[in-house]
């Protein structure tokens, strides 16, 4: 009898909690669907550190890396309970991945958009002693001798799309794409003379620029403060810009209080001097978007990359 009563009391206590709930009342989990050390991972962890140190959220924020294909981690968030305690930190890959490989059933539309915190754009890169002094030299060569200049990329990923954007902006130019991988691998391949060009993110370029590579342009809408001498692709007459921003999502159906709470925290963190310094050091832009503006931005971005992302689809998928 006593036991039964205790059970009822316990059940009532737990049943009562959600009504009293004020987000957040337990630790928050952020899934980074990439291995540790990547651009998104570093951003999420720096953000977490700032949120923690400034006590912006009274509960701990835990970053969890899920390696391998980004869709694995994204799916974990997509199917997680929408209780307001699971979030996803990701970039443009969530949008382009849907176009490149639609069979995965993963779409940004299956998530609640939370916020956009800064982003990075790209540089076309050659070796410092390359005969191609300007982007025009490079693209002219790629037009005169199509499918001979080897561009090191990660097929279907952001650097591959960067190369395709260049081709779109300079009709007739055609690179020979080779699967090399991310920034580190592509830097090594260029230095070893195995590839003639690649696309590096602005932060990757900051890492490698002193070691024998040269940027021929910048795909951002305006010149980078760190690199005032590198012309943008629009200035060079290619008529496009191409950047990848840092997106935060929650599972569909997450309570508005949690989405607002997280967006508030990210907005406050983004405005701190610590985050500003981080964005500068990483050659990232530090803009912030949330709510309807962010949702609209996602639709715009999706439309702008759709034609190029289709071209990045590996042949066996077309």
């Amino acid at each position, binding site marked *: 009898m006593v036991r039964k009563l205790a059970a009822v009391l316990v059940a009532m206590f737990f049943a009562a909690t959600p009504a009293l709930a004020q987000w957040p009342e337990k630790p928050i989990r952020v899934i980074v669907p990439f*291995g*540790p*050390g990547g651009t998104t*991972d*570093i951003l999420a*962890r720096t953000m977490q*550190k700032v949120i923690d140190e400034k006590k912006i959220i009274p509960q701990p924020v835990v970053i*969890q890396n*899920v*390696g*391998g*294909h980004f*869709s*694995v981690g994204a*799916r*974990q968030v997509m199917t997680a309970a929408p209780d307001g305690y699971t979030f996803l930190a990701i970039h443009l890959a969530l949008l382009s991945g849907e176009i*490149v*490989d639609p*069979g*995965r059933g993963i779409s940004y539309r299956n998530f609640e958009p939370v916020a956009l915190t800064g982003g990075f754009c790209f540089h076309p890169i050659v070796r410092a002693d390359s005969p191609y002094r300007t982007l025009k030299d490079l693209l002219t060569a790629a037009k005169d001798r199509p*499918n001979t200049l*080897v561009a090191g990329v*990660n*097929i*279907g*990923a952001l650097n591959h799309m960067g190369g395709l954007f260049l081709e779109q902006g300079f009709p007739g130019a055609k690179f*020979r*794409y*080779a*699967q*090399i991988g991310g920034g*580190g*691998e592509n*830097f*090594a*391949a260029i*230095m*070893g*003379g*195995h*590839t003639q060009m690649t696309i590096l993110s602005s932060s990757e370029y900051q*890492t*490698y620029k*002193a*070691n024998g590579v040269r940027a021929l342009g910048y795909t951002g809408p305006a010149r980078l403060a760190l690199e005032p001498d590198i012309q943008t692709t629009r200035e060079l007459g290619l008529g496009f810009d191409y950047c990848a921003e840092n997106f935060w999502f929650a599972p569909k159906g997450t309570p508005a209080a949690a989405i607002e709470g997280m967006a508030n925290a990210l907005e406050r963190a983004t405005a701190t001097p610590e985050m500003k310094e981080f964005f500068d*050091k990483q050659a990232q832009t530090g803009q912030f978007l949330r709510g309807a503006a962010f949702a609209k931005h996602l639709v715009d971005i999706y439309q702008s990359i759709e034609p190029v992302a289709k071209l990045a689809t*590996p042949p*066996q*998928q077309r």
Partner: protein
Amino acid sequence: MTLLDSFFHLMEPAPFLLMMIGVIVGIAVGVMPGITAGMLMALTLPFTYAMAPVDAIILLISMFVGGVSGGLVTATLMRIPGEPSAIMTTLDGYPLAKRGFPGRALGLGNAASIVGGIVGWIALVLLTRPIADFAVQLGPWENFSLVLTALVLVSSLSRGSFLKGMISALLGVLLAFPGVDQTSGLVRLTFGFDAMTNGFQLLPVVIGLFAMSQLVADTMHVNQGTDHIRANMKGVLISLKDYATHGWNMLRSSLIGLWIGIHPGVGATVSSIVAYTVAKNMSKTPEEFGKGSEEAIVAAESANNATTGGTLIPLLALGIPGGIADAILLAALVMHNLRPGPLLFTTNPEIVNTIMATHLVAHLAMFATMTLGTLVFARLMLIPRAILFPLIVVFCAIGAFAMDGQIADVWIMLLFGLVGLAMEIARFPLAPFVIGFVLAPLAEGKLRSALMISDGSLWPLVTRPISLLLLLVSVACFVWPFWREWRQRRNSTA
């Protein structure tokens, strides 16, 4: 901060304590099967945020060194590799211990570890920059040929039937294919299971294949007394004469481990296998290998420790991690806003020097700890199986789960436990399976990159000199055991 300053810094109480903690916890984790040094480092990473970068590096490098060395104890006393890199040590360490020389087996492995570590360290200090300059010229063709050479070496490695060894290796290759096709980013062969998107991950496969299968097999006769061997101190410190006898083997195996470690993605496990195979082929008593050969233990343990120095070279010089542990080190550096690469030598010499100094001092600390603490670590083996095994099973499950937080990985681990058990019963060797599994994605990725660069032509494989040389070596490795067997047969009939 010069290298000397870094040594002095390590002698201060706080850094010294951190290093000892790292080494001891590393060894303990190395001893426990299923939990790797890489996993320990991953779990430690969050605790290093608050530390100064130099201290974080000291802790992580010490764990790396301790972990690779601790695998020896379990390999020798329980025939389970405490770390994947101790696979080869199980083949001979255990038989030697079983014959009544556990102290000797541990002592030899320990001595080989320190020699391998020191050789690796010397190379790390002297060669980092020049070797990185050279390695950058190795393109996908050379890398493919290198991996192929390693795969061929596996064929001469298998105990017993050559055919069973090949089948085992090819099964490993086959099971490496499901998951993300790294060349196109597309997912293949998942049979519609979302949990299969990342394919079979190395950790659940290795834990299942080596730890679980062994546990299940041993549990079948859990009451028949212990198979694990009581350690004694007899022979733990080997004599100078032993160093002289095994000196050439130690040096050769260390150099092999070092050379393999320099190549990204081919880590301590492969290096110990190659060193073991070379030692077997060069040995005057190859028939002793697999039955408790001292040469075998020395070869495997020198090589895997030398690899720790080797894998740090591309990490420091190019920012490219050589293995799982290096990937975690890279993450630690990046988290502290440090960027590995040639630039690190000028911008943060204290980090480069700390890594180099810690690598050496942690090896010395490891040697002292392992020598003095043999009985303490071996006591882990005296815990009754009924208590120890469930604990290890829990660790296996945690280990399989922890990497990606996927429960499916635990099922995969259990599945491979059954596969391993079945293979053991049918007397298929397990090591070639794992090697095929590890090397297949590398070989595939490099070859497909190469073909994309050459627009489909295979000719560069033989027109590029380094690639050609490596291919010739692999042919020689393939033919050599046959030729030797044929010659022996002819001699015996003559």
